[in-house]
């Protein structure tokens, strides 16, 4: 172990199983709190209880059912309305008082119904050029906060009705100016709901993190995937969020943590993408054969797509994360016994003059996606073009695919997941009985 806190990120495009890995981490050792450090209510981290009941964690940490607290850091976007519904579902699952284990940083941005309405309207107008948004307003919330840093509603404002009202009126008017009158609730109703939220949750300053980290082992739970990162992903098919370990490392440094955390990357035994954007190893047969339990076709997000394990893309994810300490490999059970799953360690790209029929020039292999200068979106967009034009060089998958994945990414495998529950998590090299 390099340190007692753990940072968990998804090395793909999301959906690799961070929730189930975090739940297992929290159930297998005394974890004090799960700290969320990016994204917002659009996260969907699935955890299945031993009795088969299931919860999709969006704003509560995926360690909740294992008894860990949740802290929403200042990097989070918080949707109190969605959170209330998630809390009720957790209570139905037997969490006596979900709010009592929750602290929220007062600087976290608030996602409001106005952001959501603007988000859906903007996507509607994009038509076929949709970005694969979840339709909840996360991107709008980030964009508005960058354009209007002083007017962006924040969690701390929920306890100050006058401040909140002023900010919501400005926001509502800005949305109406851009999109016309949308179907949105009155400001007064939002102020009231947010005030109830402020009464219900513990809103804290950034300093609270210091206390939390000192109280016991914490798990930083990332959302989405590193390949969707706002700066390192394949622009513009990215999310408005830093999905690498950077935010977690910043929070740790700000809190004065000395020990480095253990940084764990989560990958499936195959690579998936929900929505539009590059997926070099995509295979229509696999998409049809491996539908996902928790990921249908979202009205706003688009199709769930499946491809072979893309070591090139995942290695790029490790590299732009500044290196990791270990892997968690999920969906080992799905890969078992499938002879149609392959792995991709290099792409084929066409160079030189393509000629009039597009088939000219030469081809060469491309095994490392080179990170560009940080925050250079022009570079990222060019990268997207190159990746979209690439075809995968597919090789047969090894019988012990999780071990092979560790070798391909050059990282030790901490845990292999053979099913949705905690009991399905095992040390590498050991296939559980009954699989």
């Amino acid at each position, binding site marked *: 172990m390099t340190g007692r806190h753990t940072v968990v990120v998804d090395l793909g495009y999301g959906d690799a199983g961070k929730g189930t890995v975090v739940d297992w981490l929290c159930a297998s050792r005394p974890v004090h709190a799960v700290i969320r450090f990016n994204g917002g209510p659009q996260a969907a981290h699935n955890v299945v209880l031993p009795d088969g009941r299931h919860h*999709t964690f969006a704003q509560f940490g995926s360690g909740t059912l294992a008894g860990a607290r949740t802290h929403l850091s200042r990097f989070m976007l918080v949707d109190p*309305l969605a959170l*209330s519904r998630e809390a009720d579902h957790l209570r139905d699952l037997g969490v006596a008082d979900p709010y009592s284990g929750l602290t929220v940083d007062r600087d976290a941005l608030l996602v409001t119904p106005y952001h959501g309405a603007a988000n859906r309207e903007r996507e509607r107008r994009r038509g076929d050029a949709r970005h694969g948004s979840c339709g909840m307003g996360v991107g709008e919330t980030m964009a508005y906060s960058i354009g209007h840093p002083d007017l962006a509603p924040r969690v701390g404002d929920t306890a100050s009705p006058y401040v909140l009202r002023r900010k919501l009126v400005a926001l509502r008017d800005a949305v109406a100016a851009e999109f016309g009158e949308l179907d949105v609730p009155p400001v007064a109703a939002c102020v009231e709901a947010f005030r109830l939220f402020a009464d219900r949750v513990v809103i*804290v*300053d950034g300093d609270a993190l210091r206390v939390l980290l000192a109280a016991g082992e914490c798990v930083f739970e990332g959302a989405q995937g590193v390949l969707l990162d706002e700066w390192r992903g394949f622009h513009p098919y990215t999310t408005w969020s830093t999905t690498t370990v950077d935010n977690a490392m910043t929070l740790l440094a700000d809190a004065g943590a000395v020990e480095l955390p253990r940084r764990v990357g989560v990958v499936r035994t195959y690579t998936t993408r929900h929505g539009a954007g590059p997926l070099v190893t995509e295979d229509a047969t696999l998409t049809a054969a491996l539908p996902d339990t928790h990921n249908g076709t979202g009205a706003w997000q688009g199709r769930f797509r499946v491809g072979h394990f893309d070591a090139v893309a995942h290695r790029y994810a490790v590299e732009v994360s500044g290196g990791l300490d270990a892997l968690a490999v999920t969906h080992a059970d799905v890969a078992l016994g499938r002879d149609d799953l392959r792995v991709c360690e290099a792409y084929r790209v066409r160079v030189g003059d393509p000629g009039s029929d597009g088939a000219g020039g030469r081809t060469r292999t491309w095994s490392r996606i080179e990170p560009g200068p940080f925050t250079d979106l022009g570079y990222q967009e060019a990268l997207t073009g190159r990746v979209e034009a690439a075809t995968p060089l597919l090789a047969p998958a090894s019988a012990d695919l999780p071990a092979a994945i560790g070798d391909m990414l050059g990282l030790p495998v901490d845990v292999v997941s053979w099913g949705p529950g905690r009991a399905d998590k095992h040390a590498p090299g050991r296939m559980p009985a009954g699989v």
Partner: protein
Amino acid sequence: MGSGRWSTDVYDAADRLRRSTGTSAFAYSDSGARAVHDALNPMNVTTRESCDSDEHPQSVAIAVLFDVTGSMRNVPRILQSKLPGLLGLLLRKGYVTDPHIMFGAIGDATCDNVPLQVGQFESDNRMDDDLGRIVLEGGGGGQQTESYELAMYFMARHTSIDCFNVRGRRGYLFIIGDEMCYPRVKRAEVAAVIGDDIGEDIPTKAIVAELKRRYDIYYILPSAASNAGDQGILDHWRDLLGQNVIELDDLDAVCETIALTVGLGEEAIGLADGLDDLADMGSGAGDSVGKALARIGAVSRGAVVHGPRIGGSTAVDDVDRLDKAVAGPDGNDGVIRL
């Protein structure tokens, strides 16, 4: 609204939040408990200890006891929401390196089921757990008297604090309430609640004098409380504690007030520095805290057993600067400009 998995409309969310209200901060109390939680029961407790350790070599004991009668019901709820901030403020600004915080609650031994609840001195957010276990009884009140003297008896005879034992520095006891003490610590009540046989009643003034040797005692009267501004109550506490009676006009500022009082007592800051710190952190509590602590900041801590004291001139300068800041041309917008 929205289309994510948990999205919900604003009215539905308000309903959900409203229905869930009142089960969080004081889960034990709100679950209907009417007996003291084992973890907070003073009966047969030998000592509550604040000990130095390798991890916390410079422990400073800070006890916060509050009245839990009906008129004060909001205070514990606000404390609970502010607490992580209190500890962080103390630590980040270096007012204290190793604060050990204890929470407790005071009722009325003549008529309440739970007249005294005392947690442990804790250095992390386990203290939140103690807060969650406090029973908010809502009895007492009416006669403007609560059993503060019983709580002070417990603090005097059943706590052991290394800041005093090892370094000769007094700990801090904050009592937050809006009523007066009974005149004597009653033998029968001590036996029934704490389990000691003290032979005979002890005058409240005597127990206060005994407690003052090891603790600086502060009384905080939130002016939102029902008896706020009652001169009789202020006089009563000033008679017992001198200038250490703090009138606070904004209940939300209670944790900032405690933090700055400790900062002043530890000679880590002057009042103006502390108010600067609050402004740095974006706290809007500066005005209320500044008003509440003007007297304490001016006089500084009473006699400290060992060590130097804040120079009087510095403290007076601080108050001058504060007066200018509060009354300054920029207006009272919650931001202190010095």
